[in-house]
């Protein structure tokens, strides 16, 4: 297939975020379950499955076989999903609580040539939520529908005071969805540098002009000690970024080197 996926695209279609928010409110509190991938987040990251894999160990987890609507997928949600003219796999409401963060990772299954494609519809979000894809902030607004290539490195940080809630839809590939992606690309707002990556870049420039600081950091052989030293020296100079920003830079440094052998 000649279709090449962009990192992200805002599709032309819009959803009524007020109505979606009200429908979320109407769901029972006990329906929210912690995300299965417990090693990769901090704070509250939980979800409600609207469509789930029959063979998955928990309703939020991926599976191999068929998916079907859960008890929470009422007429309202069915009507929303019916607007997507594609085969649906899992459909989840995912919530990231205030102060919560999802560490940088890649969902490799979404990158396979015939793998599913993932759409995000923000329902409740604000400017204090950083959704970072390839180290850059994706400017998603409530009610929009975004395709995101999450086989690329991504992470989420909720610096705000309220829960971020997205409707997350895994779809089968197909001509309708590809046409939507192409149609949306033209006016998709550009990704923006994240506050952490900007601070990291500024600290790098500072450090490259300071041979003493270079020598001090370059002497480290142990990653944990190096990370602690970088964060402390940067903070002392007024550069604020997280260990995730540093880790992302290191994984970029590693892949920039190894990509020379990839054909």
């Amino acid at each position, binding site marked *: 297939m000649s279709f090449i996926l962009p990192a992200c695209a805002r599709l032309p279609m819009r959803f009524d975020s007020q109505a979606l928010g009200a429908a979320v409110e109407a769901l029972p509190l006990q329906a929210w379950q912690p995300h299965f991938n417990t090693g990769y987040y901090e704070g509250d990251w939980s979800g409600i499955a609207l469509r789930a894999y029959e063979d998955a160990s928990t309703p939020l987890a991926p599976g191999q076989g068929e998916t079907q609507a859960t008890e929470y997928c009422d007429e309202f949600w069915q009507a929303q999903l019916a607007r997507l003219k594609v085969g649906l796999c899992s459909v989840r409401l995912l919530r990231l609580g205030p102060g919560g963060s999802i560490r940088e990772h890649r969902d490799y299954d979404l990158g396979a040539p015939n793998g599913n494609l993932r759409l995000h519809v923000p329902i409740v979000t604000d400017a204090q939520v950083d959704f970072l894809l390839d180290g850059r902030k994706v400017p998603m607004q409530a009610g929009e529908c975004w395709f995101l290539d999450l086989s690329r490195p991504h992470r989420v940080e909720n610096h705000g005071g309220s829960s971020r809630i997205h409707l997350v839809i895994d779809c089968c590939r197909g001509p309708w969805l590809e046409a939507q992606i192409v149609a949306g690309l033209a006016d998709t707002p550009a990704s923006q540098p994240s506050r952490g990556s900007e601070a990291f870049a500024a600290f790098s420039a500072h450090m490259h002009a300071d041979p003493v600081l270079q020598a001090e950091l370059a002497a480290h052989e142990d990653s944990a000690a190096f990370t602690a030293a970088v964060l402390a020296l940067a903070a002392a100079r007024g550069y604020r970024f997280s260990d995730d920003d540093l880790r992302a830079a290191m994984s970029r*440094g590693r892949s920039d080197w190894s990509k020379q052998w990839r054909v």
Partner: protein
Amino acid sequence: MAGLTLSGDWRDWLPIRVWRDADAWSVDWCHFGNRPLREPFFCDSVELALRRPFNLAFRQNTGMDALLEWQQRSPGLPPTAFILHASRCGSTLMAQMLARLDSHVVLSEPPPLDALLRAHHHDPAAAAWQPARIRALLSALAQSRQGGERALVVKLDAWNIFELPLLRRCFPATPWIFLYRDPLEIAISQLHSPGRHMVPGLIGASPLDMPAGQAASLSRPEFIARTLGSVLAAGFDHCANHGGLAVNYTELPQAVGGRLAGVLGLDASDAIIAQAGLHEHAKRRGELFEPDRERKRQAADEATRTQVDRWAQTPYLALEKLRMQQCAAEATPA
């Protein structure tokens, strides 16, 4: 990886890779501090440097201009000698002997040099800038980072013998040697454990390339014998026409402190240290420089002997004849 350095100060940094992206060439700089390059190959030193977390987080990319500017600001040691070779004939051992010396910067097959020497094979515009950028690259690699260095010896990849005329244009005054060995012995070693140029298509565009499909149609012994024959023939041609010193593996290691000492920038005490390194090296590695000629020759099958005779024997004999003439001329008082 961050962008341009603000200061243009590359003390403690070395260019570890140059490559072409679309039309622009870029340089990847890595922090080495004042650590000398003592490993058998430049890429081993790079691998060690990349184990430091600093070099994952803070390596820098620049354009090629940074190399040229750095050469202006801080010229490196001029090259003392180049070592070209036919592979499996003691060149790594020779480089390791020299790398022990505080007086010597030794660059053993640095990939960025290979990339620039062969740039014109895939970038037609390269020929115009190759000499300036090759000189700037070597200048950056040959910085005096410890203080006592006074000589620079560069060992190239075996397939770089085809780029020798370009190298000579860049450094017309630098002497060079071509190290080779009985081709049957090289072929047996390459059959047993092939170098990169002995696997079709692995090194990218090079004068070793055969017409499409031909390499795959050849037996392993024939492919190796033909490739080896090309390298030896180029070695002979260039020695004869570009003033190279023909050196046979059988002269090692004595020749390093002997007839090659002057070319390699060794004085009497250096030569002793270099020879001592030989013993340490041999003990540690337990492989190089045991007299393994007979064992190698006995391992050759008939097909390999036939192919080597056909493709590689003639240039080998021509090299041997040239070497005899050169040795006789050295022995004759001027």
